[in-house]
């Protein structure tokens, strides 16, 4: 049990760490991009949307870190 907890603890620290918004944000961005693809939004617009969403997640995280 200790090893299982240590294993998941390692991966949590590795991928989430102290910035959960950088884990949840890109997943949410990809989900929205997937919805846009399914809705038939043209590829250049969907690609642009994904880029803007990822940049917004990164920018928000930096702004958040500056407030803290």
């Amino acid at each position, binding site marked *: 049990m200790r090893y299982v907890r240590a294993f998941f603890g390692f991966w949590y620290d590795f991928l989430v760490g102290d910035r959960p918004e950088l884990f949840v944000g890109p997943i949410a961005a990809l989900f929205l991009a997937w919805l846009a693809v399914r809705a038939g939004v043209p590829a250049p617009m969907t690609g642009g949307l994904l880029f803007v969403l990822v940049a917004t997640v990164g*920018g928000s995280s*930096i702004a958040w870190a500056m407030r803290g």
Partner: protein
Amino acid sequence: MALVTIVSSFLASAVEFVEAVTIVLAVGVTRQWRSTLLGVVAALAALTLLVAVFGTAIILFVPINVVRLVVGGFLLIYGLQWLTKAVLRAGGARAKHDEAAIYEREIAVLRTEPPVPATGMDWISFTVATKGVLLEGLEVAFIVVTFGASAGMLGPAAAGAAVAGALVLGLAFLVHRPLAAVPENALKFAVGVMLTGFGTFWAGEGVGIDWPGGDATILALLAAYAVLALLAVYFVQGRLANRRLRVTAAGPGY
């Protein structure tokens, strides 16, 4: 694409190997070189096995669109973490990585350990070196597997990492000092841009985006992220300067 994969993997791995070498040097210098190097070999063997098993399994058994979505998604998450940290460091909001200071700290900790045995293996050297290389190397393995699997180029990605490892270890062996002169923070900034750009591209393909311009879009994404990251550095510097001004204007507070 192969060259880009090699360069990206090389740069990302070089940064991690520099950090691992600092620990290895500290253990070797303060304790026993033979046990330390055996620890390094054990960790490198474990990492090679990990990359070979997981990388090959992912490429052979998982459909490419799933690989691109899941693995590209991980790359995007990981890249964004690197990039935002690098921006905060470059802007002065976060302490920069200082290998010389880390080296001194490691040596101070190792001096509190029991003395090296007169004969045979020094298990403390072995364990600390193995753990250090394994932990830093896992990040290399993660990058090699994600990059290699998403691009379908595990070989070039592994080659980039191997060259980086050989170069960093060789340099450290020659100078016998932590590689503090390596522009680690600038490298992390560049690698953060690369991982985020490639992660966006591959994860985007995974969700079904047919990027206009094909692979050439990667270059546009890299350029756009680089520009935004530089603007973010100016934003951070500006906020810190404003904060300092406000503190100065408020006076000493008595």
